[in-house]
């Protein structure tokens, strides 16, 4: 699933909110039963990812190399296929403005170590945030609980290896813009939003940033390290006219320094965009209901790819035969001209990584080439079991979570059509420019995504904006109904968070303008 949170939704992410069907306790996060009933949601947000900022008195990174060596040599049975240690130290800071004031300033530091042992289809995983040698050795022991053999591998030594390339800055993104400057930027956003239109009643703005120091020590003793910055700015407004209220939001970010938000004038653009969408929604009429052609705009509407085919092409579901795409390698699953790639190596993008969380270098992976399924996204375990190479898609939310094959930046390559010709081709239907979140059931292929800016179109001309409507389709059918592909490929502004099995990771999507000949539009107008 993929989702863009507006600032209200961001609050909903706090454990302070009661998510009725899930963990009923305030403080504990029990993702265990969630694994099944949440499916895969792509969210458009970043704010509450673990991040860190301040020097620790006891840092995970200060664990002596001899202790790590001892852990490795304790945990790996002779018949293991794979094993690793994952050390993480993250800081995050978040400033939020509401009612004209920056009333919420918060920060968090999280750190810990995860130990993992894999044999065949089985994995053991233990983690701790305590650094006493006894706690670390307990974790190492627990991770090998799956081992049948008492025999151990020959001991080995840890060897640092430099990272081959950098797809983003390794400097703490908060370093060059102190909290005072971030607060001033939020106040400017508030003033600007209110000055654009007197109907603006509420402004919510949030700046969040995180910096994560990652160390992976592989079974062969190779020690890789990466420093991962992530920043996000979100603006959301409530407008009111004649007793009617509407909301609009916009966000942007990526793996770069916070100062870029100022240098690129992004704060002003996002503010204007949030107000524009909210005002537009004041005039929105009921969306139509039923099956009709839909033109999707460029950029974030690429959420279509993430939901319709992205999750279904992750290695775990295909190895287990639970994806509707299982066994379709080499077959046509999209119209001619449709090429979709997942690329974790794009400079500064939210979904990019120098290497994945198993230490595999990220790369450009072609998933669909001219309509033909040519590749799945793999972590090491699923790649090994399927007899293919890992693709740099093994990711985890933190040291406390298991590795899963996940997307990075997923997008469709540009075609040759002029976007205005694509819109003009629509005799009657919907032109959907922006979206909230989406969700997929990878087994039946059913997926949905919900518009946040869309228009009713007749005879190739925009008639009026329509209220948010959920669009529904089947993942294995929808890309076969793509009849026009624009020449205007765009990546999203850096706002996506993907959820799978209770883990959230930042991702990107992208798409040119396309025409889909039939999608179910979930409006109220018969």
């Amino acid at each position, binding site marked *: 699933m993929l*989702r863009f949170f507006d600032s*209200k939704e961001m609050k909903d992410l*706090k*454990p*302070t*909110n009661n998510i*009725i*069907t899930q963990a*009923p*306790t*305030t*403080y*504990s996060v*029990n993702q265990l*039963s969630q694994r*099944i*009933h949440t*499916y895969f949601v792509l969210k458009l947000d970043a704010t509450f990812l673990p991040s860190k900022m301040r020097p*620790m*008195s006891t840092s995970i990174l200060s664990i002596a190399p001899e202790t790590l060596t001892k852990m490795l040599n304790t945990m790996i049975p002779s018949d293991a296929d794979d094993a690793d240690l994952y050390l993480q130290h993250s800081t995050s800071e978040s400033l939020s403005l509401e009612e004209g*004031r*920056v*009333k919420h300033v*918060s920060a968090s530091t*999280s750190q810990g170590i995860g130990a993992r042992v894999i044999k065949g*289809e*089985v*994995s*053991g995983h233990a*983690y701790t945030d305590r650094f006493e040698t006894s706690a670390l050795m307990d974790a190492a022991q*627990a*991770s090998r*609980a*799956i081992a049948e053999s008492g025999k151990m591998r020959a001991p080995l030594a840890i060897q640092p290896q430099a990272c081959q390339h950098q797809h983003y800055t390794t400097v703490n993104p908060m370093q060059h813009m102190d909290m005072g400057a971030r*607060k001033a930027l939020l106040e400017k956003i508030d003033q600007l939003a209110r000055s654009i239109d007197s109907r603006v*009643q*509420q402004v919510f703005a949030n700046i969040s940033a995180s910096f994560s120091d990652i160390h992976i020590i592989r079974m062969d003793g190779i020690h890789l390290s990466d420093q991962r910055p992530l920043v996000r700015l979100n603006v959301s407004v*409530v407008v009111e006219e004649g007793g009617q209220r*509407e*909301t609009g939001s916009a966000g942007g970010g990526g793996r770069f320094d916070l100062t870029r938000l100022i240098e690129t004038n992004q704060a002003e653009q996002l503010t204007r965009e949030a107000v524009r969408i909210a005002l537009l929604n004041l005039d929105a009429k009921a*969306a139509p*209901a039923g099956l009709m052609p839909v033109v999707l705009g460029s950029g974030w509407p690429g959420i279509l790819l993430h939901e319709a085919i992205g999750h279904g092409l992750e290695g775990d579901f295909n190895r*287990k*035969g639970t994806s509707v795409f299982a066994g379709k390698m080499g077959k046509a699953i999209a119209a001619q001209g449709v090429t979709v790639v997942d690329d974790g190596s794009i400079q500064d993008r939210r979904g990019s990584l120098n290497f994945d969380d198993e230490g595999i270098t990220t790369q450009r992976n072609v998933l669909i080439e001219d309509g033909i399924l040519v590749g799945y996204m793999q972590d090491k375990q699923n790649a090994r079991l399927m007899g293919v190479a890992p693709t740099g898609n093994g990711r985890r939310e933190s040291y*406390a979570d298991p590795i899963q094959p996940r997307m990075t930046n997923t997008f469709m390559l540009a075609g040759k059509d002029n976007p205005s010709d694509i819109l003009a081709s629509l005799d009657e239907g919907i032109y959907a420019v922006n979206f*909230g979140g989406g*969700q997929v*059931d990878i087994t039946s292929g*059913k997926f*949905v995504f919900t518009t946040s800016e869309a228009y009713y179109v007749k005879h190739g001309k925009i008639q009026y904006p329509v*209220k*948010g*409507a959920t669009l*529904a*389709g*089947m993942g*294995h059918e929808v890309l076969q109904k793509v009849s026009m592909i624009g020449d205007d490929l765009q990546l999203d502004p850096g706002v996506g968070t993907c959820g799978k099995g209770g883990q959230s990771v930042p991702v990107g999507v992208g798409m040119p303008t396309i025409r889909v000949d039939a999608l*179910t*539009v979930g*409006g109220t107008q018969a």
Partner: protein
Amino acid sequence: MSTSKQPCIKELSYKLVEFAKQSGASHADALAIVDTGESIDVRHGQLESIEREDSRGVGLRAFVQTQQGLAFASASTSDVSDTGLKQLAKQVVDMANISEPDPDSIAPEGANHPSHEDIQAWEVKYPTQHHGWDTHQAKEAALACEHAALAYSNDISNSEGASASFGETAVAYAASDGFAADYTRTSCSLSLSVIAGKDESMQRDYAYDRARLATTLASPESIGEEAAQRTLRRQGAAPLHSHNTTIIFEPRIATSILGHLISAINGRNVLQKQSFLTDTIQQPIFPDFIHISDKPEHEHGMGNRLFDGEGTHCKPMNIIESGVLTGFLTDRYAAKRLGTTPTGHARRGLTGDTGIGTSNLILKPSDVSVQAMLQDIGEGVLITELMGFGVNGVTGDYSRGAAGFLIEKGQITSPVQGFTIAGNLKDMFANISHIGDDLTWFGASAVPSIAIANMMIAGEK
């Protein structure tokens, strides 16, 4: 996993408040949380993974007094050494000095705390018990659960696996008025998802249960069979045509209606106009047969609590009485702004301001059987799955993906999928035509089936 290894977390939270005051905070409150547990996944009769959790965290909210009122900030860390706590305290106080004061900000002092006697009585009534599972028992439960589903029918073609988990969470809260209390919650859960059919006709569904103790969890066999039955009945799901009709949310889905209500009467959302129910106090928002209450003590509920995230003593509240909204849910800040008494609904995480949340939320069932409901409705759609996030909390506009079953001549007939349901929550609340007698618990909420008239279905036909 043993329950014995509890560090004294009440002391941690109390120390953190003291350190905040030493760093210059005028007021502070703190949380300390320790989570331990395990999760065991099995698939096709084999162990798939074992995960062991061991984590701690402390969170501090510190206030500084200014001429314009109190300003505050919050932060969390997993470093619970004295040095770590002191660093956290200094960091939060520094950040509070950057925060903008709010004249309505309310210090974490003088809340209507439970008395010492209340706390003692609670501890006697709800003693900390072991959840009752170890790794081996949990694995056996997961295996039995999956086996029950696979053995149920040859049409169950694949399994996504069963997952059994257990653990305990110890939470301590301390405030600068001297209130400090802690409690421990245990949890066991068992879930399973299985698949029927093959290739493009595959269907999946799941079943799960959660309880404080393994002994009160539904049996592995019943969960397995429920997952199998739910999956099998979806085979051959067909598209729907677009039309206006009555829908029934089965209890699992009906919990979402309570969620939308709680979000809309969340006092903080109301203050920020992020709700479609801002001016509805003492107004009928549901038909008169709807009664919804929040009960901080309930034998089945997993949301039992003596005090809320600000240490306010929790009391039962009849939120909806005969369809009428009695009041918004508040923490102390929202109550002050709304000019009411705090309802004891503050919720807190390690960082951030307080939010709003309920304890055990119950929609009172009717005495009408689901069969009688179906007969009365005649034609409609039973909804057993919802997808996506098409709910606008500001306007109440609602549009979500759905799957379920046709209701024809008062009977549940064939499975349907690939459609959306749409309306506006205000209308949906008012258009509830029936509720069933089938009250079902899901963690901390309990609901019966709910029928809603006049919903728009968009389908492929």
